[in-house]
């Protein structure tokens, strides 16, 4: 199982304002607000923490299928290079990659190296972009498992959690997909 979240930095600057009143208090714990306050680049810290929470939520909801909006309760801990997110008694480890264009977070139940693939989306229509990411994920699985791409299908549950099917049979392969602005990301996990 794996949870992935990507943030397009240009898009975020356009569509979100982390400095608006009450924004930080709604989403971040006091500890996290302190990390943001102390950071040399508060903008990046805000969205890094946000992407960690999102990746952790995507992993958590694969274990406990449900939907809710409670980012503040997904609490991030950053100690050196060791990033953790906890929610009630759930705990996961998160890797984050920050480039000049995007922030990518990947959550696992154990320590893992980052394996997500990031794609720059060249078309601008949201539905087409979404399709491109799914297509890239199917190509990747088809190559990795040497199976026909035409027989693979991504199906989302009622909670919006994606699974991969081969010939209408659900595969025991964890996937996670993320899309934001002009960037997409996906990850495949065998355990």
């Amino acid at each position, binding site marked *: 199982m794996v949870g992935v979240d990507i*943030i397009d930095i240009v898009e975020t600057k356009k569509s979100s304002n982390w400095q608006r009143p009450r924004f930080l208090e*709604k989403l971040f714990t006091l500890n996290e607000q302190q990390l943001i306050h102390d950071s040399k680049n508060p903008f990046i810290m805000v969205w890094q923490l946000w992407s960690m929470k999102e990746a952790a939520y995507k992993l958590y909801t694969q274990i406990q299928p449900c*939907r809710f*909006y409670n980012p503040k309760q997904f609490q991030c801990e950053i100690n050196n290079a060791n990033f953790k997110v906890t929610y009630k008694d759930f705990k996961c480890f998160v890797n984050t990659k920050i480039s000049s264009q995007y922030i990518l977070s990947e959550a696992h139940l154990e320590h893992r190296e980052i394996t997500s693939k990031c794609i720059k989306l060249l078309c601008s229509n949201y539905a087409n972009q979404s399709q491109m990411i799914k297509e890239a994920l199917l190509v990747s699985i088809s190559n990795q498992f040497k199976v026909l791409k035409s027989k693979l299908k991504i199906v989302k549950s009622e909670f919006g959690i994606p699974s991969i099917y081969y010939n209408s049979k659900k595969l025991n392969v964890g996937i996670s997909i993320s899309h934001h602005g002009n960037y997409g990301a996906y990850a495949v996990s065998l355990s």
Partner: protein
Amino acid sequence: MQNEELISKLKEIIAPYIQDEDAFKNLSENTDFVKDLKINSANLVDIILDIEDEFDIRLENEDMEKMLDVKAVMEIVNTKLAN
């Protein structure tokens, strides 16, 4: 507040964040912010803050947790306004 009035105020608040025009045109109580309107989850908090400003109410974490569709938002806003 009448439901039609509330829905039309909510539509105005939600409009800047939607990524699916067709779903927005057909907005009803059953419309889901993420599944139908494809609103980015980071913008859900903007909608929540806009609702607080528009209706002069405060939404707690327990309220936010359920705010995934139009119906849930209407229920929460109406409850807050009645108190």
